[in-house]
């Protein structure tokens, strides 16, 4: 009996693995009747033929969770972000809404352009940097920690206002230097396993590494609810996970290195719809 059970278990595991490979290739991401761009022909200077959202690499079951906002656990975080948006904070006793009004208008399109050069601070800003800058500058409030529940909720809520819009980051002007730094990082081997991002996500996307289906490493859905985390996480958290896996010392979340890499990755996904807040496994 025990043997039978064990066999059943192995069979079940294999079935799950097989499903991972055989997710319907023609499935489309449609939320509230709106079709998202999860696949597009890459421009001539792209290393890809086709640009593919991470959504396309997930199993049918995981994909389905993102089709319905009531089932997508990431929406709970975005809702908390909305609450924070309307709550006064800091010495000046102002909420985001006091200055920026309706986020669906004032924040529309912002996520699609991040990371972005900040003229005042003369540096490249990730969305998190923008939020903390505004907290200090406009609310006289303490900055949030990069991976705090509040920060992730706020990036999810602000990102949601760009959902469905095409990723469109600027990589010329003062951002160019950052883009080049990000590109260099992308192709640099690190860690005891001695791999660069490109080895898995450019040369091997679509292949399985154990139970994981390698994607192109697109970041258009972040912050995401990740089943493996049983919670939300930032783009930089995901970078750290990759570096830990290849036994490298990760850069810090919010570091110049990760922000440069974020810009480079965003540029490789130009034209994909923003899916924030997405769901991945």
């Amino acid at each position, binding site marked *: 009996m025990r043997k039978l059970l064990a066999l059943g278990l*192995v069979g079940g*595991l*294999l079935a799950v*693995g097989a499903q991972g490979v055989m997710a319907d290739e023609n499935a489309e991401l449609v939320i509230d009747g709106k079709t998202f761009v999860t696949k597009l022909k890459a421009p001539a200077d792209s290393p890809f033929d086709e640009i593919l959202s991470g959504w396309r690499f997930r199993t049918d079951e995981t994909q389905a969770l993102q089709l319905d906002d009531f089932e997508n656990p990431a929406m709970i975080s975005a809702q908390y972000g909305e609450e924070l948006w309307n709550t006064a904070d800091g010495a000046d006793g102002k909420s985001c809404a006091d200055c920026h009004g309706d986020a669906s208008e004032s924040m529309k399109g912002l996520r699609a352009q991040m990371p972005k050069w900040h003229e005042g601070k003369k540096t490249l800003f990730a969305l998190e940097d923008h939020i903390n800058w505004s907290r200090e500058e406009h609310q006289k409030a303490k900055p949030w920690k990069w991976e705090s529940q509040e920060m992730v909720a706020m990036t999810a809520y602000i990102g949601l206002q760009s959902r469905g819009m095409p990723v469109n980051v600027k990589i010329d002007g003062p951002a160019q230097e950052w883009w080049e730094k990000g590109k260099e990082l992308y192709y*640099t*081997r*690190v*860690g*005891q*396993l*001695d*791999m660069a991002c490109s*080895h*898995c996500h450019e*040369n*091997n996307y679509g*292949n*399985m*590494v*154990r*139970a994981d289906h*390698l994607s192109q490493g697109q970041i258009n859905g972040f912050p995401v609810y990740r089943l493996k985390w049983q919670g939300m996480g930032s783009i930089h958290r995901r970078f750290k996970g990759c*570096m*830990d896996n290849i*036994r*490298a*010392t990760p850069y810090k979340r919010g570091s110049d290195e990760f922000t440069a890499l974020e810009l480079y990755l965003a540029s490789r996904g130009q034209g994909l719809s923003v899916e924030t807040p997405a769901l991945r496994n």
Partner: protein
Amino acid sequence: MRIVVTTALALLIGVSGANAGAMKPGEVKIVDGAVATPLTDQAGDPEKGRQWFLGRKLGNCLACHVNSDMAKEPYHGEVGPPLDGVADRWTPAELRAILVNSKEALSPDTIMPSFYRDSGFNRVAEQFAGKTILTAQQVEDVIAYLTTLKEK
């Protein structure tokens, strides 16, 4: 307390025992894509090699390679070539070179880790710094196992 001390001693002896006569990573020379001399005096054990091949914290070879000999194990990777019949394609000396330093033995661009190198890496996590992925004996054990994967 005594148990702890004894265990620590046993571990020390065990470690030095395993390293006795082992070639250091820096001493291994790849000539014409091969390392003819085994890294240790002790012959590789294919049964152990099979375990290191599977071990997620060790070789974790199955993460990237299909291997029909392990058909009962779930989740075979697709990144590297299938290893069915690998012994028909490579000699043990060639397999040794590939395991020790894949970039030198196969191609500078390969994704495959080098399992017996301890330097020349970038930003290695502190706990792995200066260490090899497998010990010399584990490399020999894996070669002994791979040598059993024949189709002809």
